[in-house]
């Protein structure tokens, strides 16, 4: 029996992504956000997660994808980090999948640099590919003001 790992999966601009379930605290539907001026645009705002203030990072923007249409409300994948929870904004939530280690492969060489940096590897599933997101790297967002 080969080792397996569970992933919390989600969609971003048609791509299928996953984060190991251990790193995910919870998944919640769209929350109203308070925008934060003077920060990089990947930070969409702050949400109130039961009294905790959580920063919401838009993964589409982080991965240099097109913005989702204004009508489509993003969902929150709240990730655990050393610095407390951070919300990852995604298009849609998928299932929790259990995948075999055997299906793993390193990130293809020909992916764009920005994406390759944040994608740890790929699981070859039956009918699609699951991209594993490196949460820590995805959250390395400097809060330095854009307009200095």
């Amino acid at each position, binding site marked *: 029996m080969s080792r397996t790992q569970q992933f919390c999966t989600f969609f971003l601009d048609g791509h299928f992504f996953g984060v190991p379930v251990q790193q995910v605290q919870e998944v919640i539907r769209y929350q*109203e*956000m*308070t*925008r*934060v*001026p*003077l*920060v990089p645009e990947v*930070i969409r*705002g*702050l*949400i*109130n997660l*039961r*009294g*905790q*203030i*959580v*920063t919401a*990072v838009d993964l589409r923007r982080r991965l240099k994808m097109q913005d989702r249409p204004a009508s489509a409300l993003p969902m929150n994948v709240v990730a655990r980090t050393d*610095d*407390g929870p*951070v919300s990852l904004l995604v298009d849609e939530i998928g299932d929790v999948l259990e995948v075999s280690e055997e299906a793993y492969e390193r990130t293809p060489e020909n992916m764009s640099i920005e994406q390759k940096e944040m994608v740890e590897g790929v699981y070859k599933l039956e009918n699609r590919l699951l991209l594993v997101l490196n949460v820590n790297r995805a*959250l390395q*967002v*400097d*809060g*330095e*003001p854009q*307009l200095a």
Partner: protein
Amino acid sequence: MDELIQEFLVESSENLDRFDGDLVKLENAPENQDLLSSIFRSIHSIKGACGFLGFQKLEKLAHAGENLLSKLRDGELQMTAEIGSTLLETGDRIRQMLGNIGNTGNDGDEEFLDLIHRLHRLQERRSASKSEPSLGADPEPQPSPEMAKFEAETSPDNKNKLQTIVDAVPEQSSKGPSATANPEAQSASDPEPARVAEVHEAAAQEDISRAAEDRGKGNAADSTIRVNVTVLDRLMTLVGELVLARNQLLQFANTQTDAAFHAVSQHMNLIATELQEEVMKTRMQPIGNIWSKFPRTVRDLVVACGKEVHIEMEGKDTELDKTIIEAIKDPMTHLVRNAVDHGIEFPAARREAGKDPAGLLRLRAFHEGGQVNIEISDDGAGLNGEKIRKKAVERGLVNAEQAARMSEGDAFNLIFLPGFSTAEKVTNVSGRGVGMDVVRTNIERIGGTVDVQSTPGRGTTIRIKIPLTLAIIPALVVTCAGDRFAIPQVALTELVNLEAGDAKGGIEMVHGAPVYRLRGQLLPLVYLSEALGLQASLEQNTDLNSVNIVVLRVDSRQFGLVVDEINDTEEIVVKPLRKQLKNVKTFAGASIMGDGRVALILDVPGLAQRANLAARGRENFAAQENSKNAVSGGEFRQTLLLFEGQGKTRMAIPLSSVARLEEFAQNRIERCGAREVVQYRGQILPLIRVSEVVDGGMAVSDPDEPQSPLEVVVYTEKGRSVGLVVDHILDIVEENVLVRHRSESTGVLGAAIVQQKVTELLDVASLVRSVHPKFFEAAGGA
């Protein structure tokens, strides 16, 4: 780490703190049995615990200290400075070993045999000298069983080592070894063995009563428990949430008619409020917790520098939030050390000045206006304003002119500038030129202020004002571009509302920088929407709507923050921002509002900095600009030439830089290269159109009045002249000029109010230089 050991470390460090504190008190009250017992208990419990946990080296040292203390407690020894110092050193070493245990899990390699030996010598020597006169009544035999016990408890190899040391001590070699090695011989040498037994019995009884006392104390200890701070923080968060849920519930209840439901929600409301208060209390600690270390600090300093200082404390029970207590610990320590090292004079000097040779250091804490005031005062020589001014000028922190104009109080506050120190020589205590600025930075970081007052010959008082808590603060909630922002109330001085009609006239522009005259003083304005890069146009605000100005204070300066709407003041729970947002200096944190949405808390100093209002007050300005162009923030009397620039802007230059006023007909202007010149007294006078340089405005004169002559101010320096073309010369006035608003524009010093009107002060030299960079050089060469 093992939980047991962790607990031992926490407990022991508390014991040691008490040990230090009590010892210092004991030096002033050597007869105080309670203190002695408390000291003894402190070290005894450390010894007991480490014996249990197997830290032999630590146990040995603690035991040696305990032995000496038992002598003191039983009245066999008198407290002396030497004993005090040795015991304090013992405390330090134990602390060091505890540190080792915390880091590595064992008590380190050092055994501190020298210290142990000194502890023994102290107890032996005293009892020896004391035993001479009254042998019979003296309970002298006691050291021997103690020593025997001590030896029995130490491991054999260490015992040998120790024995060698004991042997090496002259006083002991004559008496000690025989006594320790042979208790029977000792009791045999005693003329009245029965008495010895009696003494022992008495001691035993005392032990019992003491044990009972300990139990009494134990009860007090049972009523408190240790709780991890993270648990308290979590509780705090949950209560915050509960309060929010409560608010929502109450809103909902208003729409309902069910009386029972109303009653329940009211009840819930009360409970939530009470719960919030109680949870807040769990985070409060008395300031005495940090003060208790100061007697020791002062004692060590006093011994090191040969002064005499008494320390007095008032308001030890004043409670502050734990995070604040931690934040002010280092600044307070620094101030206390400073007061002893610099403030209080040497005994001889004090006697000469007719003061008590022992200086007095007073710490005082009290609540006032929702803030905690802490005062640290000494009755020393006081600050020397002249010396401070001189030093500040030497260090280039201010220029001589400014220093001279400064009030005494302002001069004292110079000590808070970075890089300032008046200590003649660097001692190991202070005088490295870092310190007071760090003190101020640390205190301002938690929303506090520091101020110094001093009377020469009478002493210095440093006053710190800090908020009670950082967790929940009163804040003003404002709206800007549709978002809400909270402004901490501490920074707020007043609110100004300009009605739509007044707004346009009320706000004046100095080179695109909006200012408002607040009771005759120029208040620089910052539009929050602009500072944050939010959508909202300036014109729209000033022309159509009324204008809301929130007057804020940073250091000693004020500025006005223009917002769309002023909502309300609220108590808000401050939550820190996460890593991704930490670098944004404009926000101090975030909070959750009544409707459950998040609002950002503005960091007022950060905002001022962002809006280019310097953060550190006028001193820093001067430091940057140094002596060049001698600009000052102070008020000074000057004779000014007033004139109008383009668009009726009022400008002024010091009359001292005006050589002559001339009028030239338009047709006299000739061109030389790209420049306009006129022939003037046999020379070629280059012309500078002031408005063009300063405003970047339009060239040439008004086409409507082509024939009007040019009004020219002739400025001469080093034999070369230049003509400044102005629109209209107004007046010459003598005024007290206070430069209130600095400008980034070329050739402008800043704005001031002259004759009740906003006027720009020009810096002629830099104005000329901006047009003819080589003007003064050429002049020098010619």
